[in-house]
């Protein structure tokens, strides 16, 4: 089975190619089913590979498969090949697993979209890229996947490109990611220069030879890449905007898989990181700060997806905190649980949006619990998981991270703790606003602002445009504005929610198996928690308490209305610390001015002006000389005479 590993990415690739060629003919929903089948197939193969690998002894769980030489140039030899080890298989499993679920969900969600097949084209391409990323045997092929997922993210965020915001968000995502890629590329260059190879086995196997400075440099450069991809400070700005994409995209790419690629990369190169303690500290700090920073913003967002987006940023921060603390397993563990519950939350949110006819403003929701039973039930599971309430999955992973952070640095731990509190708070706020309280949408439906109606055209498709028997009858369900009533989603969307909810609930059990399983990868180098059991339990209690406090505060404000909502949603947080404005004025405006200056002054005036100036000079010179040619024969004779004098003068000079 191990040799079939190439099938894992190949199946989505095949799906992509088939859909590219015949997608339009397959249409809605067959294209979706095809894509989903491919993903399921990939998942099955991944499971097979997993068991195969399990069969090996712990230290023999490495398998490398080379397909063909991709770039063989001099000392640089890069194969397209796969490295099968516990880490990559874990990643592959959850990418294909979660991916398959989201594919399935999308069949329903995207139903009725005019570019339905194309969506799955992109989705499959994304899955392929992501699998290349995680399974690759070399940095360069990882980079191939890395860039591939970035491009797919771009396509999918800008899927509804008619909306300027979507198009802009897609571009922003790509460009910001590219800034990170800059670091990744430099890291590869440095690795090649140092090791003469880009293969993981070569490089990581010889990591011990690295001088400290080089190790730090490589670690930091790779981290720059991770910061871009995983939306850490300061390159996180693209992720909230990326919510312009269809919700399954947000779930798959911007919550579960792509954004965790940075974490994966960090874990992948852990032997190098271990040689660079300074870099680790920086990573941990950035992670903690990001977690806290994003959490604060999430507290004041009204857009249901924006909250989740900032939450994702925040949770990714946790993962980097874990990485920075040397707790690689914890990072992966949190990545997995986060994938479960965040995908769940996103899909749930999508279901809500779907049910609310493209309404994303939580302030216009409320009391949906009864109307969307499956959605609300599963969403609540996700909420408890992310809030860190035991025994849900999120508690375990977050707890482990915080324990490790405590080991590393108390301050970082404290930030993490506060963030946990905030997390519980803003998620509770979301749940209360959406599923509890008054049914504010009854009012909102009539007064739906024209601007928003404008901004969201015929998209978020299934809700408005569906006319298929598989879905729901729009006339019956939606009718006129007057009898607007939110509704539950179709089964294709509901099943994945249920599955994910189960995983989010029980994901915590993976904790110790995962630790053992990943040991060959992170090896003995893994940080063993030195604190005693007492401390650990104590920390767990504190964390739980924090979560509960957060929930309580949210409860008192948003359900009991003990405080004015606006007072806890300051503008500065609503505007996300004005980050976008700062970027616009500090980065964008000067760059644009510089570009304008270069293009229209330096290039057009100075450089081209010089060129044209020389031409003009010749002509002007000609014009002046021309005036000497007066047409008077005596002038001409004078020229001859002067020429003769000059020649004579030379002769005179020559004799003296």
């Amino acid at each position: 089975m191990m040799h079939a590993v190439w099938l894992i990415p190949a199946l989505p690739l095949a799906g992509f190619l088939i859909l590219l060629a015949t997608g339009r003919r397959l249409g809605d929903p067959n294209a979706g089913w095809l894509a989903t089948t491919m993903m399921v197939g990939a998942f099955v193969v991944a499971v097979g590979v997993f068991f195969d690998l399990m069969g090996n002894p712990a230290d023999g769980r490495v398998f490398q498969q080379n397909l063909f030489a991709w770039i063989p140039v001099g000392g640089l030899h890069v194969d397209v090949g796969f490295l099968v080890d516990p880490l990559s298989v874990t990643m592959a499993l959850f990418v294909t697993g979660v991916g398959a679920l989201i594919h399935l969900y999308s069949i329903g969600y995207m139903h009725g979209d005019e570019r339905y097949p194309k969506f799955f084209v992109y989705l499959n391409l994304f899955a392929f890229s992501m699998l290349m990323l995680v399974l690759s045997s070399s940095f360069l092929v990882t980079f191939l996947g890395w860039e591939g997922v970035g491009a797919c993210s771009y396509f999918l965020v800008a899927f509804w490109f008619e909306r300027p915001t979507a198009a802009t968000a897609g571009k922003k995502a790509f460009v910001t990611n590219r800034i990170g890629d800059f670091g990744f590329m430099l890291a590869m260059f440095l690795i090649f220069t140092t090791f003469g190879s880009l293969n993981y086995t070569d490089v990581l196997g010889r990591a011990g030879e690295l001088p400290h400075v080089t190790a730090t440099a490589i670690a930091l450069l790779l981290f720059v890449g991770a910061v871009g991809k995983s939306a850490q400070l300061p390159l996180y700005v693209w992720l909230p905007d990326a919510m312009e994409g269809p919700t399954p995209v947000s779930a798959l790419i911007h919550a579960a898989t792509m954004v965790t690629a940075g974490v994966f990369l960090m874990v992948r190169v852990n032997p190098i990181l271990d040689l660079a303690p300074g870099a680790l500290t920086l990573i941990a700090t950035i992670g903690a700060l990001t977690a806290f920073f994003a959490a604060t913003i999430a507290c004041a967002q009204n857009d249901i997806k924006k909250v989740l987006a900032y939450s994702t940023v925040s949770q990714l921060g946790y993962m980097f905190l874990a990485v920075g603390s040397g707790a690689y397993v914890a990072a992966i563990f949190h990545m997995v649980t986060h994938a479960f519950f965040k995908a769940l939350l996103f899909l749930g949110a999508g279901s809500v949006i779907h049910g609310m006819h493209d309404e994303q403003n939580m302030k216009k929701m409320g009391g949906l619990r009864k109307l969307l039973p499956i959605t609300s039930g599963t969403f609540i599971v996700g909420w408890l998981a992310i809030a860190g309430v035991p025994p849900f999955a999120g508690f375990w992973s977050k707890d482990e991270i915080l324990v490790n952070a405590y080991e590393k640095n108390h301050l970082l731990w404290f930030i993490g703790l506060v963030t946990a509190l905030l997390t519980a708070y803003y998620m509770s706020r979301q749940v209360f606003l959406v599923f509890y309280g008054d049914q504010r949408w009854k009012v909102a439906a009539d007064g739906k602002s024209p601007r928003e109606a404008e901004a969201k055209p015929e998209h978020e498709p299934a809700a408005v445009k569906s006319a298929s028997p598989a879905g729901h009858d729009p006339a019956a369900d939606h009718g006129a504005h007057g009898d607007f009533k939110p509704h539950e989603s179709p089964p294709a969307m509901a099943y994945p929610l249920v599955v994910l909810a189960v995983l989010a609930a029980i994901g915590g059990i993976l904790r110790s198996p995962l630790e053992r399983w990943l040991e060959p990868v992170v090896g003995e180098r893994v940080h063993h928690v030195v604190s005693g059991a007492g401390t650990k339990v104590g920390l767990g209690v504190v964390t739980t308490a924090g979560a509960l406090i957060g929930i309580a505060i949210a409860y008192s404000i948003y359900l009991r209305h003990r405080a004015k909502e606006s007072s806890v949603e300051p503008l500065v947080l609503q505007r996300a610390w004005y980050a976008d404005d700062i970027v616009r004025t500090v980065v964008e405006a000067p760059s644009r001015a510089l570009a304008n200056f270069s293009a229209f002054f330096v290039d057009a005036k100075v450089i081209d002006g010089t060129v044209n100036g020389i031409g003009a000079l010749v002509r002007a010179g000609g014009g002046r000389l021309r005036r000497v040619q007066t047409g008077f024969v005596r002038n001409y004779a004078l020229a001859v005479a002067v020429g003769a004098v000059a020649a004579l003068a030379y002769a005179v000079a020559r004799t003296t």
Partner: protein
Amino acid sequence: MSVPGAWYLGLGAMLFTIGAVGLLVRRNVLVMFMCVELMLNAVNLTFVTFARMLNDIGGQVVVFFVLVVAAAEVVVGLAIIVSIFRRRTEATADDVSLLRG
């Protein structure tokens, strides 16, 4: 005794220059042409003087040819002058300046 050749040659140089300057400063084409004759005479004088100084008859022969050339030039030149200034009241070189630039 006999005047040194240098004197003759100096005279020739001056004559040549007067002719050249004359051509430059006079506007009447005929006078300009006379100035060319002055220059040719200066050359003739120079040749003859050199012939004496070098004791070489060649210089004198050359003068003979120059005379012929001068005659031919005069014939053609005056014909051209006549053809262009036939209808004009002045034979002014400056009037002929249609072509320029």
